[in-house]
């Protein structure tokens, strides 16, 4: 008697999928925090947001063959939007403290942001803050990061350039595009609280 080894393991085939799963996982990691901000700002519950992120990951696995890693972020954002929409459909009421998109107000804010220096008291208004946050959290993950670093953390262009290992001019370009996207998001906030650009 030499070898008497029997293994019945239906999951062996998973090993050959490791490479594509790693790529998917890396792509998910790159955009997950940005999508989490998108979700948690709209549902107001970190635990619920965690559940939705799990469901988004499961959806990504199931769509692994159909969605290239490079296209994962916008696809995941669509999944997140659907999860949020489905969630609110099942609820009898939406909590009052959660932000509600106001398309007209947001479009006007988008215009004012480039045409006037908005007074501080106007910027501090709840309506202004909520529309801005809806727009910021709708940015793609890379744009979110650079906007947060510049406006929330006060990181200088030079420091950002050093952090991202790019030139300051490249940072200026990225910031410019991020601001543009933010204004576009504001101008197109829909009435579902699920704005996406």
């Amino acid at each position: 008697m030499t070898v008497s080894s029997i293994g019945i393991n239906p999951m062996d085939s998973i090993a050959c999928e490791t490479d594509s799963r790693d790529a998917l996982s890396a792509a998910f990691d790159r955009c997950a925090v940005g999508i989490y901000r998108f979700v948690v700002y709209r549902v107001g519950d970190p635990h619920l947001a965690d559940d939705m992120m799990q469901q988004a990951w499961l959806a990504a696995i199931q769509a692994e063959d159909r969605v290239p890693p490079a296209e994962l972020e916008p696809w995941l954002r669509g999944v997140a939007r659907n999860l949020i929409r489905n969630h609110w459909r099942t609820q009898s009421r939406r909590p009052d403290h959660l932000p509600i998109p106001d398309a007209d107000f947001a479009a006007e804010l988008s215009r004012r942001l480039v045409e006037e220096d908005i007074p501080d008291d106007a910027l501090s208004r709840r309506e202004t803050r909520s529309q801005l946050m809806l727009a910021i959290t709708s940015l793609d993950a890379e744009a979110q990061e650079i906007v947060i670093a510049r406006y929330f953390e006060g990181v200088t262009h030079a420091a950002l350039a050093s952090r991202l290992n790019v030139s300051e001019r490249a940072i200026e370009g990225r910031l410019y595009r991020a601001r543009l996207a933010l204004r576009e998001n504001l101008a197109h906030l829909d009435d579902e609280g699920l704005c996406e650009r």
Partner: protein
Amino acid sequence: MNDIERHDERDDRLDRNLLAAAHHLELPVEPSPLQRARWKRAPEKGILGMKREKFWKVLGAGGAMAACVTLAVILGLGGTKSVNAAAIFDSLRDAIRKSLWIEIDNLQAEGVTANGRVLLVFTDRDENSAPTDANDALAASFVELRMTAAPDQEDFPGLDLETAVGVTPDDSWCYLKTHYIPATIYADAPFLAFFAPMLNNGVVLDIDALDTAGNGNVAIGAGAGHGPVAKITFSTTTSNPSGDGANDPDDGEDDDGFEFSFSTTNSADAGEGTVDHVNEHLHEMMFGSDFRATANTPEAQAAIESHMELVRDFLTGRFTPEQMTRFIDMIESSASEVNVAPIGDGAFLLRASGFEFHGAISADEDMALEVQYHEGGRIDNVKLLNLGDGAGELRFIFSDDDATSEVFDRSRYESRDGVRTINNIGELFSGFGQ
């Protein structure tokens, strides 16, 4: 002013306004690394499992219960492998009373149905000593399971398997009987044909005897808390350092060995079938992350302590009215319907249903929780109703009673027609047509 200058002016103003606005804005709290890691720990095919995780979260004591159900018996016959289980069993021992019965009724997932029961008996606690081994906390354990797969089940169509395990200080045994093994399994593992006659008749394995041959591991589990899980793994190896194949990296110490692994687990990393792996699986459920990888960080320690506090608060069954109110509040935050009704003799029945399992999945929408308790007193039992793909139930019954010895008596299996008892490693191999 040309277009570029006008553009720059507008962009500069936008920049200034955003800088000013940011002072009034508050970002959502960033997810922790632990949190981010959990996002990708959802069972791959485990929509149901994920929802159950949410449910366990609702309970606030889920890890312990899920651990009870998912793994009833862990034996690390090879030595230190069982240490990981010690903390869990010790916590359970601390929280639960003398013994805990878990009844599994028609639990279906991924085409596999489980019925059975689990008994955990805990040792009398010595406050001055910490367990160094699982067996220090666990006095005895027993599992009895019948696993059946639907005819159209993807991996094991029609599989019908019966197993039981009894572990006491005096005797450790396992009973295994296959009522039907689908051809797909034979195709994947032709060697199983050698085992088939014995398994079809039923076999009782003396686990301690198997261990005398060298290293040995036995892990048996049935799942409900983390995706479809049904895992039975036996392995034992005998060292053969002077064997002919000593220079062959694929040969050597495993020249003589026995391994039988069965799993319906669909999570991507669940096929390894080792005690270590099962223990890790347990810890993940217990603590929501890889325990060993994170326990050294203050964040992980705090999370574990917080979780264990919740486990104890729930499982000790010594809720004060105030604690019960908080508990009900917690349930209410996730359940659309919560009712508490007196059922006589000072007992109450809490029933919660309509849990929010977010998304478009609807399979477990009918899931309900029932807790029978005495106000200011103990919890008598907990039921989870309408679980899984069918109307499955899990019943947790806390008891102060010692388990009866009959439960651990293997003779009722050995006396069945055709059942063979394997008491040593030699009999084991001779039984497979050496």
